[in-house]
């Protein structure tokens, strides 16, 4: 249930901004109708970012999250208020991924690190990391649809505090290159890239050339983030994109990890309603059936090459086990949650999954060390919720 101001994703279909920009971005060999349909579907996925950034802003305003950068990426004020249950979910999602990311950055602290955020949209994580520690040795890449990238870059250009954060990491200011379509620097990069261009079938005899990503390090321990991103792609595309990233763009010798945040458990009544409610908004959770449980997410990580460790936990578990008692009390005190059963129900349908490979050579055990002591949820939940 939403507050009345919630942007209806369907209402914005095929209208307004971004229309002209996408002309000439045709994907060869497809008929025009198909192309139009595909663009409409993409538009819905692109707009999910707006929904997420509004949720983030709501959580910030209510004191759940400390994020001075969130407001810069609200493109369409006023900001609707979200229900407490959604604020708490946004909080746990952010806190959980922060925990894993911060442990990665804290491990082997002098060494160069890299983060690649898939479908990053208007995510503020880079700015939050750097504003806390401008000396961290990190190169950060965000990949997203050109439309989302253009919107984000425009916001950055109009927000001095964001530019200041990026510049604080650069010894030479001219290293920061900003156009309307892309942002590059030795530390922060926003690449306009339809992720599906990375979905390359390895069996193809003459694979298309890989896109070049400026400032991509092939040797630094690298963390991939997919926050509600790969799930909108077909299972084939989602798997191929990971394969390309983990073998072609980042060589197998480099330590590499992946953090996923996604819905799970589609087979119980809540899951079935979720699928149909989102489908009514044009949002299709395409990999949900294939990666429907914590067990399946772990198996997915293993078969995607993250062979040295895999773990997963649902948001209910993370709230219960990762969030400290004092912090839990602070968060629970912000707003009264009227219905706890509803919270547990909702929270059990989202998970964080993480896995890694050590690569070869130095820095091999980095992820294992960094995430030692981060508790995953054990056991096989394969059959759960299936009637």
């Amino acid at each position, binding site marked *: *249930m*939403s*507050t*009345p101001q*919630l942007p*209806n994703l369907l209402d914005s279909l095929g209208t307004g901004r971004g229309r002209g920009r996408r002309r000439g971005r045709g994907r060869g060999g497809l008929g025009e109708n198909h192309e139009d349909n595909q663009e409409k579907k993409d538009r819905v996925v692109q707009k*999910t*970012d707006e*929904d*997420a950034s509004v*949720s983030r802003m709501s959580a910030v305003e209510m004191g759940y999250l400390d994020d001075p950068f969130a407001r810069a990426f609200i493109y369409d004020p006023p900001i609707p208020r*979200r*229900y*407490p249950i*959604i604020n708490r*979910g*946004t909080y746990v*999602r952010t806190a959980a991924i922060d925990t894993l990311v911060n442990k990665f950055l804290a491990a082997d602290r002098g060494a160069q690190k890299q983060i690649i955020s898939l479908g990053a949209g208007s995510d503020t994580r880079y700015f939050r990391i750097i504003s806390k520690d401008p000396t961290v040795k990190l190169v950060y890449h965000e990949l997203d649809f050109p439309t989302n990238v253009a919107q984000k870059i425009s916001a950055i250009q109009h927000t001095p505090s964001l530019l200041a954060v990026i510049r604080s990491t650069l010894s030479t200011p001219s290293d920061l290159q900003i156009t309307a379509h892309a942002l590059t620097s030795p530390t922060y990069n926003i690449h306009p890239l339809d992720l599906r261009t990375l979905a390359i079938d390895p069996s193809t005899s003459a694979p298309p050339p890989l896109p070049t990503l400026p400032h991509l390090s092939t040797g630094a321990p690298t963390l991939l983030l997919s926050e*509600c991103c790969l799930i909108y792609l077909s299972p084939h595309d989602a798997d191929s994109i990971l394969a390309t990233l983990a073998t072609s763009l980042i060589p197998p010798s480099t330590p590499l990890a992946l953090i996923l945040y996604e*819905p799970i458990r589609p087979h*119980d*009544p*809540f*899951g*079935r*309603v*979720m699928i149909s*409610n*989102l489908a*009514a*908004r044009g*949002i299709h959770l395409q990999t949900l059936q294939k990666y429907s449980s914590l067990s399946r997410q772990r198996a997915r990580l293993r078969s995607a090459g993250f062979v040295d460790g895999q773990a997963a936990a649902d948001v209910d578990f993370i709230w219960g086990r990762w969030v400290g008692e004092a912090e839990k009390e602070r968060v*629970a*005190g912000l*707003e*009264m*949650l*009227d*219905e*706890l*059963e*509803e919270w547990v*129900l*909702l929270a059990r349908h*989202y998970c964080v999954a993480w896995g890694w490979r050590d690569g070869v050579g130095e820095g091999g055990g980095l992820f294992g060390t960094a995430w030692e002591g981060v508790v995953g949820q054990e056991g096989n939940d394969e059959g759960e919720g299936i009637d």
Partner: protein
Amino acid sequence: MSDLDKAIAQLRACRPIPEAQVRELCYKARELLIEEGNVVGVDAPVTICGDIHGQFHDLMELFRVGGDVPDTNYLFMGDFVDRGFYSLESFLLLLCLKVRYPDRITLIRGNHESRQITTVYGFYDECLRKYGSANVWRYCCDVFDYLALGALVTGASTKLEATGAGFAESYPQNSMPADDLDIEIEILNSNGDIMNRFPRSQPQAPSTPKPEPSSSPILGTPARTGPAGTGASGSSSGSLSNDGGAVLCVHGGLSPLIDTVDKIRLLDRKQEVPHEGAMCDLLWSDPDEIDGWGLSPRGAGFLFGADIVKHFNHKNDISLIARAHQLVMEGFKEMFDSTIVTVWSAPNYCYRCGNVAAILELGEDGSNGGYVARSNGDAGRKAEREPRGAPGRRYRVFEAAPQDSRGMPAKKPVADYFL
């Protein structure tokens, strides 16, 4: 047709009534409610309902399944407003029915019937959206302050009168009890077909765990019937009365400050729901699998265990506590050897949860010439009372009303998810 009947007709069509009429209605309702005690006496037969939460179309489905007012005597245990899109229409319709048929519908207060909660959870915004000012919200909140805190149902029968219903296809064939069996619990689907039945069993040793019935046809049935030949009615300690004992209805649950029903009667209820204290607890507390009392993770009210319920029921001559307040996926849930039941009447809660809803029917004990023994929690009476079983309980389980049903406006709800 009186103005009130016109208002009822308009609200049944899910159309709000003019502000002036709301004001008059709320005034009349307050006059009526001010005369009610904190604990309203209700005679069986009665149909007990849980949370509605502004799901107007599902409230219409509830009336279709349970019968219309005034044909059916209803008791609603609060949380009429918030979360759903039609809190206003739902609450005003119930209020109109209350003014029109005061003896056929009882409304008690839920934790959402509060100024503070409705500003967070939607009712305030809805009034503002539909009237352009907060006046209607204010009128309604003034009515909330006068709603009773509980109800005591008396005259309920241990026996379930047959409905003449057929058996649902899902009915577990191997456990179909004989027709002459004393049925304690019957579960019907929204077509009135029997989904499951639980015969009254002989008193069991306290150590024997009994499965708690739910609307799922798989759970519980075989064990509940007990060993072959023991399922007949009656009790080893003599013949049971048909009087099912009193049923206390309250939105949330018990309070450590309240050990008798009479103490509820002594509260000053005509105020906003306080953040703590007995009145708050009655509207906020939850039963839980603990011993004694515990802190509630909700931040208001308490958790209370089976020992608290059994002691309270024994002391107050109550056979069952009916309460709402917690989402139950199966629509209802009996706990603690059927000494307390949660009834939840908002199907697919928040258009997102995928749950079914239920209402609880208690039949009338006609065996005593209609005379209803007063059972108001007077201490000391329990020593004399004859052995009695819990009231027979018929649950009707129903799903969310189909979208665009019966030509009523149905804005396509947008449920929030994490995207």
